[in-house]
């Protein structure tokens, strides 16, 4: 039984409760104020703006940490609090409040966003030091943190939508940060556009929820989800999934994520790996009661997750651009989380735990990639790397830890949390459970292969550098965040999973699942964990044979048709172009000429001859006016025809 089904979230007043929760809005206000100062302040803030942004992000982190402390001081049944800020809009029976929901799930996200976010702010101080647009960059980063906090702290779907599109805007601005590059501008627009398709789904889901429940606040909607009937909840669930697919780059709305790597690397780490792209998983877990009342929608969620986890992994295997290989990996890892989120209560904690550890090791990997690029004149082609482990020892060490974590090396973070997902998949039972479980296992093997490929091509083997490359270790401000993230990549998994600590912590927000007695021995000796280990070893070994023992050619070999397909991102872009872009262009052209020639045509034809006013005046009495009258009559006739079909 979910605790919020029993009661509405507890209202918070400053007098009765600690001051942190009642001022939770400050968590959002800090980075928002930072963004406002940086974006409106102009050049005056150039000298210190980036430090202001770092400070604001850290302030939000402190607030999130204090909120956690206060939350832990409460009885678990009371760990869901709604903080009223102000009334946003109202019309008829619809009222939308700016209310913040403080519960274990939202605080987990707030900590991840502000924690990893602050590290990436610090990293960017060094990474963007030479960029003339650094102030604008930090303004956008602060804006992103604020919007993402709105997304996860909202206590109703409309406020969530505000954050949802807000992070979309920040993502758009940051992908296209180097606007003078046409490729960046196109990638930014593409990301926003594909996301809008998903947003359309979310928007329709919101309308349907209001039409069904008469409210859009989480608590009452979830409380009556069962009563709505599975037809309605299935439709709502599928629409929410569409929104999640856009934001989290899941099939079929995945095509924007690889192009999004046009943005500066810290952006790829924060937005397109650790936080924003996981918002879809958040949405599904948060809307758990809807999905639990809609088994079909849940099934579709798991299928989407499984398909994306394999597709992303396959793409990751073939990309030579280090950031795009990592982006394929992100798709794949979020596929794991989506799969788990679709399993219902047994998968929620596993999904969110993997989301958190992934946030650490993937952010670390991206920052490592950025560090390599920083030292290699912004080269991204791994075929131009090789043997970098001696030139960049800190980067090598931290990247290596992230690598071990993501492939599921025993006792590192990824091992704990990925194991949780695989186990939950098999535990969900039936043929579906078997298929999902084996997809997850296969994915583990692929992950080991493509990540080892990245590792070997970058840090091992012969030096295939460009003539003018002089790799060097990055400055302290960049390596320090990498070290912190590496520590998380090592330890966080055990902290969260050992003894089901995290699952129990999340219970007040996502509901309880059955836990058998926790035992490290069973975890180590279970057949799933041993199989995953075998798949991992096989993946590493295969990569070692191909990319460490054999020399890596400087130009990519042609490859089999599978390689070519993976390089082309499994033709997702081609599909979009053929299905939507070309027909769309044809439709637009046809509509423009229809408007000119048919709707407006009569007018243009006659009036084209008119040159000066006197002649125009003369013609006005002859053909000119008549033609206008004709076209107006046509318009009016259409109106009348449509309006007055059986008027009299």
């Amino acid at each position, binding site marked *: 039984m979910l605790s919020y089904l029993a009661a509405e979230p507890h209202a918070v007043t400053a007098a009765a409760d600690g001051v942190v929760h009642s001022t939770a809005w400050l968590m959002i206000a800090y980075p928002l104020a930072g963004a406002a100062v940086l974006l409106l302040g102009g050049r005056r803030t150039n000298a210190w703006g980036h430090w202001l942004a770092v400070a604001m992000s850290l302030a939000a982190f402190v607030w999130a940490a204090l909120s956690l402390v206060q939350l832990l001081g409460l009885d678990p049944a009371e760990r869901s609090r709604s903080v009223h800020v102000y009334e946003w809009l109202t019309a008829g029976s619809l009222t939308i409040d700016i209310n913040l929901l403080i519960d274990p799930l939202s605080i987990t996200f707030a900590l991840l966003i502000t924690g990893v976010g602050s590290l990436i702010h610090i990293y960017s101080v060094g990474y963007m030091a030479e960029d003339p647009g650094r102030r604008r960059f930090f303004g956008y980063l602060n804006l992103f943190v604020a919007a993402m906090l709105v997304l996860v702290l909202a206590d109703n779907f409309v406020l969530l939508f505000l954050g949802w599109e807000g992070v979309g805007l920040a993502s758009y601005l940051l992908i296209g940060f180097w606007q003078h590059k046409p490729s960046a501008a196109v990638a930014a627009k593409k990301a926003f556009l594909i996301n809008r398709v998903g947003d359309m789904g979310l928007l329709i889901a919101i*309308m349907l929820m209001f039409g069904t429940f008469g409210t859009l606040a989480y608590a009452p909607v979830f409380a009556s989800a069962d009563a709505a009937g599975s037809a309605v909840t299935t439709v709502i669930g599928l629409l929410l999934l569409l929104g999640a697919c856009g934001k989290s780059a899941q099939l079929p709305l995945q095509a924007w994520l690889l192009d999004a790597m046009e943005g500066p690397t810290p952006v790829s780490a924060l937005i397109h790996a650790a936080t924003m792209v996981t918002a879809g998983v958040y949405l599904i877990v948060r809307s758990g009661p809807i999905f639990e009342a809609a088994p079909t929608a849940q099934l579709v969620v798991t299928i989407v997750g499984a398909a994306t986890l394999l597709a992303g992994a396959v793409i990751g295997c073939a990309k030579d651009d280090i950031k795009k290989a990592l982006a394929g990996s992100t798709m794949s890892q979020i596929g794991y989380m989506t799969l788990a989120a679709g399993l219902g209560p047994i998968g929620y904690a596993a999904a969110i735990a993997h989301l958190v550890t992934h946030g650490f090791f993937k952010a670390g990997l991206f920052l490592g990639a950025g560090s390599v690029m920083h030292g290699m004149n912004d080269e991204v082609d791994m075929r131009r790397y090789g043997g970098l482990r001696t030139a960049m020892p800190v980067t090598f060490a931290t990247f290596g830890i992230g690598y071990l974590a993501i492939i599921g090396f025993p006792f590192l973070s990824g091992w704990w949390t990925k194991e949780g997902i695989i186990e939950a998949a098999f535990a969900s039972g039936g043929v579906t459970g078997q298929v999902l479980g084996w997809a997850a296992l296969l994915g583990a093997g692929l992950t080991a292969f493509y990540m080892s490929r990245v590792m070997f091509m970058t840090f091992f083997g012969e030096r295939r550098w460009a003539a003018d490359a002089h790799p060097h270790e990055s400055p302290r401000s960049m390596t320090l965040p990498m070290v912190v993230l590496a520590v998380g990549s090592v330890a966080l998994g055990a902290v969260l999973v050992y003894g089901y600590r995290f699952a129990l912590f999340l219970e007040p927000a996502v509901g309880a699942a059955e836990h058998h007695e926790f035992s490290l021995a069973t975890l180590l000796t279970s057949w799933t964990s041993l199989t995953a280990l075998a798949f991992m070893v096989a993946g590493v070994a295969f990569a070692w044979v191909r990319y460490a023992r054999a020399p890596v050619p400087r130009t990519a070999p042609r490859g089999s048709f599978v390689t070519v397909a993976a390089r082309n991102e499994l033709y997702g872009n081609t599909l979009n172009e053929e299905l939507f872009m070309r027909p769309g262009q044809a439709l637009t052209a046809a509509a423009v000429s229809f408007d000119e020639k048919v709707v407006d045509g009569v007018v243009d034809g006659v009036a084209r001859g008119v040159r000066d006013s006197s002649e125009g005046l003369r013609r006005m009495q002859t053909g000119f006016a008549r033609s206008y009258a004709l076209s107006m009559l046509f318009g*009016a006739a259409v109106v009348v025809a449509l309006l007055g079909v059986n008027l009299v």
Partner: protein
Amino acid sequence: MSIPWLTLAIALPALGALVVALLPRERAELGRRLTLGVTLATLLLVVAMAFNFDPSGPRFQFEEVIPWIPRFGVYYAVGVDGIALLLIVLSALLVPLVVLAAWRERDDNGGTPGAAGSADAERAGSGNGYFALILLLEAMMIGVFAAMDVFLFYVLFEAMLIPVYFMIGRYGRGAERRRAAVKFLLYSLFGGLLMLVAVIGVYALSARSGAGTFLWADLVGADGALAGLDPATARWLFLGFFIAFAIKAPMWPVHTWLPGAAGSSRPGTAVLLVGVLDKVGTYGMLRYCLELFPEAARWFVWPVVVLSLVSIVYGAVLAIGQSDMMRLIAYTSVSHFGFITLGIFAMTTQGQSGAALYMINHGFSTGALFLVAGFLIARHGTGAIADYQGVQKAAPLLAGTFLVAGLSSLALPGLSPFVSEFLVFVGTFAFHPVPAVIASVGVVLAALYILWMYQRTMTGPLPPALSRLRDLSGRELWAVGPLIAVIIAFGVYPKPMLDVINPAVEQTMQQVGVSDPAPALGHVDQAANGGEGASE
């Protein structure tokens, strides 16, 4: 003794127009300053009036009723409800900004004898004629929203054509402006003619029992002079008004005058044309079509909903296909007006409140878009999208304001147009899911037309031809800055506007005899009371 707020707000710019028009040609600078002064004074007056408006008071406030042509029951009757009040505030806000934007624009009379611009005149900027027309138009705009007499409304509705005709045809841009002005005039006159017939019809029918009247308050309601009208007659009269309003709005398929008119206008004229004048059409639907002929309005719901959906999708697709910025923005408005009419005819509280708010917010967002596009055109002399690239590099402020205005046009949450569009969606869905789902395609198309335009003009490498493009000047910032500020402020806190709109909408719904459908999981007795709109 109460202050005649509305009469003052009409008289002030009207007098100003007279004075500015009579100024000698050499005194252009004085004329400009005077115009700005008068429009700012009017804005202050209107804002003061708005603060005196009591949202919990009677629906119509600041009413003045003076017999004008007693023989025919014509009155000078003015008064505002929340919706009219906000539209008046919007007009009074936009006019000074337009004046600022037009400050240095040259009168380009393209070879008309006697008006060829000398070097002096070119340096001097806009002449008194244009500013006098703006002031005259402002007086009429305030009047048309304040009118409480159908005849007075009709007279102002038609009279507004005159200043606009000259603002496009004489002071517009490009070779096509005369043609565009004539087209605008003929379309509007045609609509006006139909409306005149309907207005006379209303008067004649009101005389069935007792003396005929044009007073709106005497016509509407269960015991009004139009009560018990034969349905067929009411539907014809509805159509007379509706077609005039649909042309003005503009609604597909009578929209084709707008792109030409906006494309041939000065940006300031386009702001007033699309930002305010077109709202007279949607405002008229809400106030006159719905309330004078409630039964007919309910009867016409589905045809109007279909036309609205066509407008939304068709306008957006056409916007995507445009190669000229001004025309592109004009087509986005066809799409946006589709949302407004959709919200009105959804016949739900959320739909109509959203539509009313949409009228205001659209004025902000499209006004800002037209202004910034105008600044760009003033620098480089062309509106063709293909002539621009990488402007962001040379003029970051200009690009930034353009982006914010564009984002508000695509209804990004956090900016004011989102609130209205969201309400229209929710209200339409409550009426029927299918139109709401079709309309939501507009959400995706809006992202495409705005961001593609931004990408083509503002991003990419800066070509040498544009390398010396100036960024926004202080005056230009003052023109567009207030709009950006209200777009953000009312996006975050729209309550002040909704507080005055909601009571007016509730009364309108009552007048039309419709009520909101109950949610699917609501109480059964509520569902039984569901209005016409809820029958599905």
